[in-house]
């Protein structure tokens, strides 16, 4: 079986869809967070595959940026989540409605 660009793209799209679905329907904020990471890595996979099949390193360069930003984001985001959990004693997203006033 010859693995081509389409296969990578389909895997990437499936991963992205699962991640998005997780973000939209899961209640636990940590799981939502994981969904977000999954979406990022789906994008990374897509970029790398394009880079590989087009013989262009720009895509891989972009992936490094994404990984770097994601690492920083994890550091800040997890810290925020932990702080939030300590304050509320709950990780359920329905209870976080302060945006509405």
């Amino acid at each position, binding site marked *: 079986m010859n693995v081509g660009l389409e296969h990578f793209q389909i895997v990437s799209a499936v991963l992205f869809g699962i991640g*998005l679905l997780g*973000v*939209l*329907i899961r209640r636990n904020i940590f799981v*939502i967070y994981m969904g977000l990471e999954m979406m990022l890595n789906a994008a990374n996979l897509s970029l790398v595959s394009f880079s590989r099949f087009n013989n262009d390193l720009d895509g891989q360069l972009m992936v490094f940026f994404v990984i770097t930003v994601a690492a920083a984001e994890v550091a800040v985001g997890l810290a925020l989540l932990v702080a939030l959990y300590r304050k509320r004693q709950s990780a359920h*997203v*329905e209870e*976080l*409605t*302060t*945006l*509405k*006033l």
Partner: protein
Amino acid sequence: MQPTHIAEYLAPIILFLPLAAAVVIALFVRDDDEQSAQFSIGSVGLAFVASVTLFLLGGGRHEIGATWLDVGGLQVSFGLLIDDLSLLMLMIVTGVGLLVQIFSKGYMKGDPGYSRYFAFLSLFTFSMLGIVLADNLVMMFVFWELVGLSSYLLISFWFHKPSAADAGKKAFLTNRVGDFGFLFGILLVWAATGTLNIGELATKLAVDPHLLGAGATCAGLLLFCGAIGKSAQFPLHVWLPDAMEGPTPVSALIHAATMVAAGVYMLCRLFFLLTPDALEVIAVIGAVTSFLAALMAFQQNDIKRILAYSTLSQLGYMVMAVGIGSPNAAMYHLTTHAFFKAMLFLGAGSVIHALHHEQDIWKMGGLKSRLPGTYRTFWIGTMALCGVWPFAGFFSKDAILSSALGNGAYCAFLIGTLVAAMTAFYMTRLVLVAFGGVPRGDGVFGCHESPSVMTRPLWLLAIPSVIAGFWGIDVYLAETLPGGHGHASTWYEAMFAPINHSPLAAMFGLLAVAFGHAFARRLYANAVSDPLPLSAGLLAKIMRDRFYFDEIYAFLIRISQGALSTVADWFDRWIIAGLFVRGVSGFTDLFGRALRMLQTGNLQTYAFWLAAGIVVILFLTLPGAKGAGH
């Protein structure tokens, strides 16, 4: 244009003197009654002297002017036109105005609005002179409105009296109806001929009589609408009797001698514009006014109202004279009428002043011996108004009657004769009841003659009332206006001219007066109350109630306004307030409520909308997403 003739210097001076007086009084001497009167009387006096000077310098036609408006094809000048017609009118306005202002000095003594009164009078004089001197229709219209304004101000001069304030409003609004037509007439004339200058119009129409085309009659009648309003012709006559709420000298000057004559003057000025059809309508309106007003005068009890209806009737006479193609006779009657009607009103003012504002003639009586000066002048005025030879009224009335006969307008002649008899009837009634008999009111016993500042103007007006008939006014006008006898003669020839010229008309006129007088004398000599309501019953009541014109108008206005206001109310309630105001706010509100539902505060909802948005955008922008064909 540079003035070249002395007349061209004098005319603007005459026009602007009264305005200057009004401005000076209003701005500088408002607190000084005596000075206000002096400024006002001085200015109109100077204007009178200047007018007489102009007259003595000899006639001729002069026109000066400067461009005032130049918009597109419309050119309006501010121009003054001096010819025989305007000269005569100038002398009437300034002459009668001067005497009335002198009279007012006594009559208005002690009134809190003394200065204001004289400022208004000056403003009125300015406006009236503007109409007289205007050389184009737009300028005439502007001054026409100014006259309406000053008339309004003076009728409601005692504005704290609701009746006076209402009368002022009524006069103003009724006049507006007529002025509306006047304005349309002016526009029509301009559209058809491209000029508004009266002299140019006359020249153009002389070259091409069909210049106005099919709209000629219409234009003439629309212009006549202005005269119907200002000269209080049927059916817009209702404002004039109410205008008697103003101070009596104002009634004398404005609502008897000058302003109401403006309509007739305008018709004479624009006589060349009027087609035979238009003239016929004018004659009918004049005749109807003349007859109806005389009937209404029969049963009035207020001394000023009798005179007011008499004025209406005489104005109808003049308009009828224009209608039968004799503007000369109309101007003639206007002139003599200005003198004796102003005098009659001032006489009535003198009576009212002496009786401390009692106006009901049935509460007078026996004033003959108590107010001798007023009585004599009033008697002269009555004789002149009735048309007794050799008083002025006879000659001018005869001019109208004989031209009616001469032009074959027998209907107008008959109505004219009938109205002459009726005039004699109600005027004899007025004199007999008010001055003759025994005193019937408490006010009569203590009364005494008015001061000389008031009686002298009466005597000064009595002179032209007697002799204006053989001054040769008709001969003077014959050069300018058609319809006069037009043969110059010495004064004693002029005295008998009507009898020689048209004995039938003169005879009928005199017989009518004798008949009316005798009838009134039979009924009212020594009467203590009016016998007519007993014998004539319902008819007398209808006459007293002025044929219910006011009630009919009130009814018509009520139903028309009722319907209009219902429609307007519906439109306002449902279209403006409902659809536009509440509709817009309601829609915004509903939309806002719907948008609020989206704001759940839940992060996942926002994320969902974000993702959904991206999907929609991708679907719309990515090629090939909408289908395989692309």
